[in-house]
């Protein structure tokens, strides 16, 4: 798909996506992902750029059974809102688990994984997925 086939587009996101760079609003306290100059809750510009923790819990998850074209070959797969230890919420896939093994509130940890490819000959886009933390139930 033409809209995805861009090397610089993936390249410029590498630090934010590989390290989970977010923001903390010094005005209202909201912690968020990804980083941006203004707080999404209160609009303040008093935002500190921070690296987010890689551990958290599943807030809500669902199973994608009818996927967008670039993810079609992976269906069914699990996507979730993951709440990190400092309260930031990240949209991400859950990996290394079957849907029936998961529940909301389950502890998870981030791992670097493949998300999507820019066509057969294009680059591969990576990012953080989350997997259940073994033995921390």
């Amino acid at each position, binding site marked *: *798909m033409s*809209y995805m086939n861009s090397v610089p587009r993936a390249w410029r*996101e590498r630090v934010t*996506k590989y390290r989970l760079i977010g923001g903390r609003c010094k005005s209202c306290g909201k912690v*968020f*992902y*990804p980083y941006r100059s203004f707080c*999404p*809750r209160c609009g303040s510009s008093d935002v500190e750029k921070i690296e987010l923790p890689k551990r958290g819990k599943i807030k*809500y*998850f*669902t*199973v*994608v*059974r*009818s*996927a*967008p*074209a*670039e*993810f*079609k070959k*992976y269906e069914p*797969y699990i*996507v979730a*809102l993951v709440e990190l230890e400092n309260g930031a*919420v*990240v*949209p*991400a*896939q859950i990996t290394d688990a079957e*849907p029936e093994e998961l529940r*909301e509130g389950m502890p998870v940890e981030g791992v670097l994984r493949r*998300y*999507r490819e820019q066509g057969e000959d294009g680059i591969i*886009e990576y*990012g953080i997925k989350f997997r259940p933390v073994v033995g921390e139930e």
Partner: protein
Amino acid sequence: MGKVVLAGIGATPIGEHWEKSLRDLMVEAALKALEDAGVEKNVVEAIFVGNMSSGYLQGQEHIGSLLATWLGIPGVAACKVEAACASGGAAFHNAFTAVKSGVYDCALALGVEKMTDAPTEYVTSALIMADDQEYTAFAGFSFVALNALVYKAYMEKYGARQEDIALFAVHDHEHAVHNPLAQYRRAVTLDAVLSSPLVADPIHLLECAPTGDGAAAALICSEEKARELGLTPEVEVAASTLATDVLSLHDRDDLTTLQATVRAAKKAYRMAGIGPEDVDIVELHDAFTILGVIHLEDLGFAKKGEGWKLVKEGEIEPGGKIPANLMGGLKARGHPVGATGLYEIYDVATQLLGRAGKNQVEGAEIGLAQNVGGVGGTVAVTILRRMR
């Protein structure tokens, strides 16, 4: 400033229009609206076309000029307006502000979407563009998946049951039977809804609005211009508002309220000088059953967490507290995304004009249409009032 009136409405049936192109649908709806108004096309001074995905699904942008060209009125002001599934409502809002301000006397708001040109997975790709491509679509979310999380959050927070929420789909189908423009003119049972395949847990296929093709249009004029043209306007645009919320769910503190609805509705009620208790009929943007329930609350018809009770207790039927989606809603009338906002306005006007046939609510004076883009990143609210 004088009143803005609805001079005419027009719409194509919603369905799989294999023989019709994007431009065919636009032209058909525009001509029907002009015919309904009883005016010539040269009265149109400006066109606002609501559309979400023509660039992706047809490889066609610049459809304002395209429509002016194929309608044979090149020279008018025209442009596309995009706000995902709220494109139609946003186009109407642009037309309303254009006429209300006095810049134009007569404007055409039109919504169009041609979804069946592409296979399902490409439509799914197009729809998730309503959210954040770089972070949400990147992670593989489908648009249904986002709404599945809203569904789960709602059931968890309020203890509501899926069999009550899913009744919204049954309601929509029951009324679509009597709407000649509806995509699915047949009733479904709750059992059929809940036993249909899962699309994104817990959302079943029959809880989702279908994909389809369609275009709908509304011709609006200043009251003065309408009278100058010899028309007798019957419906006034009492309010048209637009509001936003943060684009994505992961930025929200509460997934169960669409703040953009609350904001747009508050502005609209103030503009029209009414409250929710004055609304006789409503068209809600129920792209998924859970949204219909949430919208009833966010528009002020039910307390938070209790919208499903209105559905279960028959309060959204004719004769109930707030008759809703009486022409089939998004679920059964259909949801050609960029056109939906105009179909909702068409359906509200159909009721106020007394043209709704077996779905008619007798004496309906005030109707509200709510059109949602993305998971509530944008909401348009329109209030129409019968002129006495």
